């Protein structure tokens, strides 16, 4: 698999140098692998820190900025970052109002963020954590590592960032973030396997006429392989899987997300099918976001995330945000 890289070993550092050059509003510490909004810490405001393996861009570094993340910690490709990065990020953004860690539910992320929280608290930083575990493809979650965190992360980071921006205290920001996390559900589909720089070839074999249903964002195979489906059938399947788990009474935010290599033309077409089936199922969509936001390197495929919102959450979603990848209002 050909890649636009120098050598696998420097992929993350190279990308951080490129981010630094492109985004003067961010302060990028390439050596220590922390991306911080330049004006941090912001007096009187809770800091929002997230992070995870690289390869999911724009998540998380592309979501750093006013109204969303205060800092992000990029790990190696598909590998959770180390506690040192998280502690450094927390110290950089803590104004004394405390820091919220947004943690995607993977064993590595959870363990490293847990260690970091202990260390940060030792340094006198007040830390709260919220776990994102929105992927309904992981069933029997009592007998697994639990549901993975995927597209819901974007909703949690945006809304927690808006809550912090409004000056809410840590406890309240944490409560709201948890509310968003618990109200989010995702389902993903892969048309191709992913190739990591370290491996250099597809992580599994996915023949021409087949697709994987219920995939995550790390190139793992899904729960089930099937004969290739149409956009319409995939939308039916994905939305049904989500609604089996959560039947929203209120309106939802919808994220129609590409896994990295699916053209925007196809994603918009897929969105049309997602909106159709949501309409048929009586779900009201308050806002829709279409694009490659929570990706898996060069994987072709898509995911759908729904998040049930009330007026408060919708207001926080609509609040101004100014990051490389998500930007609106003011």
């Amino acid at each position, binding site marked *: 698999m050909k890649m636009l890289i120098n050598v*696998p070993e420097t992929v993350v550092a190279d990308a951080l140098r490129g981010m630094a050059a492109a985004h003067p509003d961010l302060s990028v510490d390439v050596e220590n692998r922390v991306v911080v909004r330049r004006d941090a810490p912001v007096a009187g405001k809770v800091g929002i820190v997230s992070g995870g*393996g690289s390869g999911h861009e724009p998540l998380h570094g592309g979501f750093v900025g006013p109204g969303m993340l205060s800092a992000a910690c990029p*790990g*190696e*490709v*598909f*590998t*959770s*970052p*180390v*506690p*040192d990065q998280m502690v450094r990020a927390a110290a950089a953004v803590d104004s004394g109002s405390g820091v919220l860690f947004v943690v995607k539910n*993977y*064993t*590595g992320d959870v*363990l*490293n963020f847990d*260690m970091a929280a202990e260390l940060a608290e030792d340094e006198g930083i007040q830390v709260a954590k919220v776990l994102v575990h929105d992927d309904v*493809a*992981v*069933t*029997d979650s009592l*007998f*697994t*590592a639990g549901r*993975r965190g995927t597209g819901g992360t974007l909703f949690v980071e945006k809304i927690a960032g808006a809550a912090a921006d409004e000056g809410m205290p840590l406890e309240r920001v944490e409560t709201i973030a948890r509310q968003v996390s618990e109200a989010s559900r995702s389902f993903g589909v892969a048309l191709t396997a992913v190739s*990591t720089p*370290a*491996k250099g070839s597809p*992580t*599994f074999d996915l023949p021409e006429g087949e697709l994987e249903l219920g995939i*995550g964002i*790390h*190139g*793992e*195979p899904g*729960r089930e392989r099937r004969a290739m489906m149409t956009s319409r059938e995939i939308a039916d399947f994905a939305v049904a899987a989500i609604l089996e788990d959560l039947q929203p009474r209120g309106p939802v935010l919808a994220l129609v997300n590409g896994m990295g290599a699916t053209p925007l033309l196809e994603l918009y077409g897929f969105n049309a099918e997602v909106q159709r089936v949501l309409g048929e199922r009586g779900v009201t969509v308050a806002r829709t976001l279409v694009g490659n936001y929570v990706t898996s390197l060069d994987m072709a495929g898509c995911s759908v995330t729904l998040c049930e919102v009330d007026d408060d959450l919708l207001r926080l979603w609509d609040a101004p945000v100014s990051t490389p990848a998500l930007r609106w209002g003011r």
Partner: protein
Amino acid sequence: MAEQESGQALDAAFFIRWLTACAAAVEREASRLTDLDAAIGDADHGSNLQRGFRAVAEVLAKDAPATPGAVLTLAGRQLISTVGGASGPLYGTLLRRTGKALGDAAEVDRAALADALGQGVAAVAQLGGAAKGDKTMLDALEPAVDALATSYEGAARAAEEGAVATTPLLARKGRASYLGERSIDHQDPGATSAALLVTTLAEIAGQAPAAGSGQ
């Protein structure tokens, strides 16, 4: 327990040799570990350990602590600070807790090591919430610790067998658990690397220059 002699005295240099040899072994086996991880995980286990053990070898070359406990604690901290993922905190905790259990003795014997490693493995089980049979590194580590009470070779054999025995298991922890039934029929990468570390321990103990009954 120790129905046999507990063997040679293991000093700081022994543990530095072991961890340096682990770095070389990981270097050698990295792509196999990554391929195993590709099948039921995210294709990074080899490069994770490569990064971690390179850093361990480097720090031990630069700054060689004086006691076995300090060597292992430093190595564990280094893994935690450089690996990330699930295996970073888990292997890091294994070495750190083992090191702490060894205290500040200048030399330890096999029995003491087996005991300390037992505490390290228990800490891994607690941190990760996994038990034997969940298709994780514990499936190699737990039998290895038990067998280490008797001999290095036995520990290596037990670890190898434990790793191979993960193949038919359904994963209940870590990324492989997402696959459900599809995790069956693949050997667990973490159990495989754990066996590699224990095998390397037996090798280093076998060729140890210090006197002792060996095993």
